[in-house]
């Protein structure tokens, strides 16, 4: 009995050991697979949280000098460009770099423009465009309720920035709302819907651009790069949004490229996204003058958009 138990005990140890470690490994392995994805998600949310601490969805207006300070020890080209920018632009308003910066910048910039200009004609015009977009989405097979909340929220904001009604809001309130995720995100999503609808509607036009950008189909591009929140915008998005809403957008590019358009030194290049005048829009002509002069100016640094204020 005694001598038998010894080896048995050993066997027990061994077998349990091997049997337990093996599953454990599998267990961990299985976990690891999940971990990779979860890690990505976690890291992303960490980054976002950090960003959130640094910058609200929409920041405060800052003089351009703040921007220069950021690059104090940076590329001389950038510093020079910022100096050049200072000739034309007075201030910058940062937006959070969460992948929605373009849409958020556009949102705030546009609504701020309405608050300041109280341009009812523009509001009426864009409302017509919004209705157009709604039809576009419907014709593309979107289920109404998937986008109507977002449309409703944007129109609500549009109404409220026009003074004179009960729901009117001040400029400060606009900032607050833009920093409120439950409003801000909805509006951003509204723009994403509009953009996606426009790209799909004019798929043949956008296809080459999309192909050049991501080498996917238009459909796939919209699914993966336009509609999901946090997907960064590129010129395809901007073009589509500008076209869909009929709002011209100027983007000023601040990068280290030496744009020696003139031999005298660096200059800051910009691109105006001017809405293509759609034939179906009877008000196209009346918008002409506005279309030529963008009232939305965004500062592009690789990977990010902020709002620029001209002098």
């Amino acid at each position, binding site marked *: *009995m005694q*001598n*038998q*138990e010894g080896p*048995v005990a050993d*066997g*027990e140890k*061994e*077998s*349990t050991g*091997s*049997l*337990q470690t*093996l*599953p*454990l490994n*599998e*267990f961990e*392995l*299985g976990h690891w697979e999940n971990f990779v*994805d979860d890690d*990505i*998600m976690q890291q*992303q949310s960490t980054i976002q949280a950090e960003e959130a601490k640094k910058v609200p969805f929409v920041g405060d207006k800052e003089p351009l000098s703040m921007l220069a300070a950021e690059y104090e020890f940076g590329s001389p080209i950038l510093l020079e460009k910022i100096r050049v920018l200072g000739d034309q632009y007075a201030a910058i308003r940062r937006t959070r770099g969460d992948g929605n910066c373009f849409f958020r910048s556009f949102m705030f910039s546009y609504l701020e423009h309405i608050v300041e200009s109280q341009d009812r004609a523009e509001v009426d015009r864009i409302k017509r465009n919004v209705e157009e977009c709604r039809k576009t989405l419907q014709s593309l097979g*979107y*289920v*109404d*309720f*998937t*986008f109507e*909340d*977002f449309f409703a*929220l944007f129109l609500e904001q549009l109404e409220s920035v026009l003074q004179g009604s009960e729901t009117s809001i001040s400029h400060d309130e606009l900032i607050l709302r833009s920093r409120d*995720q*439950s*409003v801000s*995100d*909805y509006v951003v*999503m509204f723009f*994403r*819907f509009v953009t*996606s609808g426009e790209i799909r509607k004019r798929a043949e036009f956008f296809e080459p651009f999309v192909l050049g950008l991501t080498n996917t189909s238009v459909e796939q591009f919209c*699914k*993966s790069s336009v*509609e*999901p*929140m*946090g*997907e960064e915008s590129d010129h395809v998005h901007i073009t589509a949004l500008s076209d869909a809403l009929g709002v011209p957008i100027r983007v000023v590019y601040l990068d280290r490229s030496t744009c020696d358009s003139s031999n005298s030194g660096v200059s800051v290049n910009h691109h105006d996204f001017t809405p293509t005048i759609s034939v179906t829009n009877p008000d196209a002509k009346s918008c002409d003058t506005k279309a030529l002069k963008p009232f939305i100016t965004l500062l592009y640094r690789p990977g990010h958009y902020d709002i620029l204020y001209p002098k």
Partner: protein
Amino acid sequence: MAQAARLNLRMQKELKLLLTDPPPGASFPFLSPDSDLPSLSSIDAQIEGAEGTVYAKGIFKIKIQIPDRYPFQPPIVTFATPIYHPNIDTGGRICLDILNLPPKGAWQPSLNISTVLTSIGLLLSEPNPDDGLMCEASREYKYNRQAFDHKARAMTEKYAKAGDGGSSSSQCIQTMPNPSMVEVQGVDMGSKQDTTGSASSDGKQSGISHKLSFKSLSSTKGKEGDSKENEMPGHRISSSELENQMEIKGKRKEENSALNECNLNCVRPHGIRRKLSLDTSGQFKKNEDDNKENVDPNCCQSLYHSQNNFISPFGTSEQQVSNNHEQLRQHQDDKSTRYTRSTGSKPCQITHKKPLRSFDSCQISDGSKKKLLETTKPFSSKSYSLTADDVSPIPLPVRHGEVQPSEDFSDRTGNTPAHTKIDKHTLLGKKLSLGFKGSSQKQDNNKENVVPVNQLPLSKPHSPFRKSGLGCKLSLRTLSQLQGSKEDHRQSENFFTNASESLPVPQDSRYDWEQQPNQDESMKTEREIIQEHGAEETEGPPLSETIIVLDSEDSEEEGQVSSRQRLSLARKRIGKTIAKA
């Protein structure tokens, strides 16, 4: 606040659409257009498996939870009905891109519940094995479609059939807590995160404990394998008695603790005693699996593992253990349909439901009476198992297969058809054949074993076989007893007598030395079984003692008891089948 209101509004619209224009195959039995739906954050849906797929005619319950930030965040969708699918794990989690936010997934706020359900419906029709959540299922889907189809159908049949709503729902609930069971098992050595994991690992331990008892017994006798058989009943009884009593006490305690956890948690800390109980559960599981054969696809794997675990301890050396493992892998790799289905959930369920029972049976049988174990277990599992179809002989062959490396393959494959297709009426005959097969296998196995392992270790592998052979016989009888229907009854009786008399003959030739003990044992075991059943039927606690007593004395009443028992059993069975039908 505003967002909550908006979400509420949106959800109401969504629900309206879901009800008026449900996605293909989906239904919402718990939603009605009039209801307020106070909690819109959770929706219960059902999806019907598409015609022409392995999930056809299955109704799968799906739980949809709506996060606060919906639609910016995707709904959390899980299957509440167990399903065998490469992209759906045992916890019901679904691997579907649109259910996750980018960059991992492809959720977009423009999607909605309807589109999600449509996608899930498509996923059922078109699994994506390249992005499998379930390794085993994915592999099978890709490389052994037949096996996959079979398992998936069996799972569908078992869990997702319309009509047995009540039971299926209870199943769901129970399976939910142990996600990953199948998943992990699929990986290879089944380590389950929770219940099953511990169960299986414990199973190993229990196997070891068996070994221990085995050894001690054998040591007294000198010859290990043979000694067991040759041992006098009385001798056995005494040892087993002690153990039984102890164990039973332990059991009681356990039982008192939470049912679900008793297997897992309690077992570990208490050492061998507990392990033993575990063992029973494990074996119980095995039987379960076997019983479920037709029904249950996943079963096999967990079984595999557990079985291997059990068995490996019997194999004396570590080497053997490793061999077994390898075998295991091989088996898995070659993926033939045969025994590979054990729903992790099933065993758990059963043990949950009747922890006491399983424990008891195991305890009783524990110790020296391995044979008993085998025979009794099928019994107990039968009486308590959910499915009416049981194939008691099967477990034993399975064992053979597991223990025996090379030959078993062939044996197994041979046996497989019989296992898989069990018809109520043909059941008997098949079982008979099976039983015989078992015995014949026994011979082969013995030969094999003897050659390489004549020394110490030999006896251990040996003994399981022998046991299994016996077990087959016994179980056959039990089966026949169980075979409740009238027509069958006669048959079974015939068979019964036949079996008891005829079966030993072949064994005779093989094991001369064994013959006498064998018969004794078979008789005894039968008696015990009956005894046990009687005890169980009356009540749990007294069981052990009665058994012991009966055992020790050669009771003449056995005949009477058995017949009575048979009848009652038969009744039971009938009742069960009816209920099932």
